[in-house]
């Protein structure tokens, strides 16, 4: 039986009936599509409501959204909100039917300020939350880790390796915050050795170079975030022993 035979066997519909058939088919397909896309929200407010319901909260405040669409992630946009001392984030992407939500995250911070490290990148940080009163911000963080001497200083006999042949790298960096909006600062560390030029060619500069590329061998520790007012007076200081590496917050 070919397609023509099937077509002849189907009842012949007039134009009105065909309109009804097409609209019903379109509605059915749209419903199926909505289901396949996990019922996308129509607006960011809708996303926030869904995020609130996920954690059984009410009265949250939408702070801002960020995007890293250039990186080609599946869900490159992030929504940030707060609810008293809770900070909420949710990643999402655009679909033809609206904003498709992905898992949300909730953080409880007594001061309402959260500091996160970018995924796989020990040199980029974001502070978000109750930052409206701060005019400027500064982040001090130590990058530390052990690396194989054979990889970085095979010919340098003076390099201070331990019994296992590991070199310990530890360097403290300070970065000024780049204001993104009233609720967010971004911090990008700068290379010390390359900038100073005093340690060119040493194992420290090689390790640092590696740390500033993705998959850094170093981990951040003892991060101190300082917030200042317009007169340069310290408003707030927050110490984070081990900044969280965020897998679900994206920024450029």
């Amino acid at each position, binding site marked *: 039986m070919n397609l023509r035979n099937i077509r002849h066997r189907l009842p012949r519909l007039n*134009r*009105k009936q*065909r*309109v009804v058939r*097409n*609209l019903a*088919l*379109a*509605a*059915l*397909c*749209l419903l*199926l*599509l*909505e*289901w*396949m*896309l*996990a*019922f996308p929200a129509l607006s960011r407010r809708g996303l926030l409501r*869904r995020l*609130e*319901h*996920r*954690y*059984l*909260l*009410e009265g949250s405040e939408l702070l801002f959204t960020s995007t890293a669409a250039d990186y080609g992630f599946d869900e490159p946009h992030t929504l940030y909100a707060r*609810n008293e001392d*809770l900070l909420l984030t949710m990643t999402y992407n655009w679909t*033809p039917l609206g904003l498709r*939500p*992905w*898992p*949300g995250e*909730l953080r409880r911070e007594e001061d309402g300020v959260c500091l996160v490290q970018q995924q796989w990148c020990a040199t980029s940080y974001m502070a978000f939350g109750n930052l409206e009163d701060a005019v400027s911000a500064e982040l001090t963080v130590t990058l530390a880790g052990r690396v194989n001497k054979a990889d970085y200083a095979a010919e340098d006999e003076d390099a201070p390796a331990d019994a296992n042949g590991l070199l310990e790298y530890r360097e403290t960096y300070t970065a000024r915050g780049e204001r993104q909006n009233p609720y967010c600062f971004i911090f990008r560390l700068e290379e010390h050795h390359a900038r100073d030029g005093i340690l060119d060619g040493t194992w420290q500069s090689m390790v640092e170079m590696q740390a500033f590329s993705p998959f850094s061998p170093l981990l951040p520790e003892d991060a101190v975030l300082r917030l200042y007012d317009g007169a340069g007076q310290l408003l707030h200081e927050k110490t984070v022993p*081990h900044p969280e590496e965020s897998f679900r917050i994206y920024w450029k």
Partner: protein
Amino acid sequence: MEWKDWCDRAVGHVRFRPDRKAIERELTEHYMDHRQDLRRIGYDPELASQRALRAMGDPDEVGRALDRAHRPWLGWLWEVSRVLAALALAGVLWTAVWGDGAYTVSRDVRSLTARETAYETDRPDFIAPDSDRQFQRVASARSGDTAELCGYTFRVPYGAVWREQRDGADVYWLSAVLTAEHPRFWEDWEYGLDLTYLTLTDSTGREYRTYRANRENEDARQPEEDSPYYIPTFSYGWKRTGLFRTEYSIQAPVWSGGPVDWAELRYPLGEGFTFRLEFEEVGP
């Protein structure tokens, strides 16, 4: 009047322009059939054309009738409905093939068909059906309370304490079912309620947290029970038991010291909720 002029005049009355070509084709076929028939019975070509044209009638009258049959609003609606149906069908196919839509639908259908009618009939839910481990239910409870938060209605319809013989000693397990009913099924579809911060307290004063909450708490990363930082962990799983209902099954180990008298389930964020389960012994 020539056939072409007649046809143009009749078709000119039809306001829905996309149909004009098809109408012209149909009228021409009709005219040509009649003309052929006349030729077949012996009319010469010119007379056959004249007679066939006359039989077609008044072009203005035919044109107005055709316009009534091909109303513009219906024609445009039909065109729009075709485009809509084609786009929607293409969207479904695209999402099914290149997105994860087919997976989403099949997973949801599987979860909807996994409904059960009774809770833990002969063994705790967390034990595989083919396991040799022997359990005995020693106490059960249910809370008659309901809690309503953000459109969800929560209930705890079931709780039990199970005894297991392990290396000659009795160990106990606590299990409970928390149900959430919600009118907005679409919100709970893929990433629904997150009960990471739910806590469970029993009559011995021990407070359990979820595995994930403990993982986020650095102090609780000590696996040893005698560590001062140790926080007992309970596990929970969920399954959708209807379009508007999700069930969370909760299990906590009560390692020793006999069955517990009561347990409290507490959700601490926002307004939160607390359910208290008073256990009553059940016969063997």
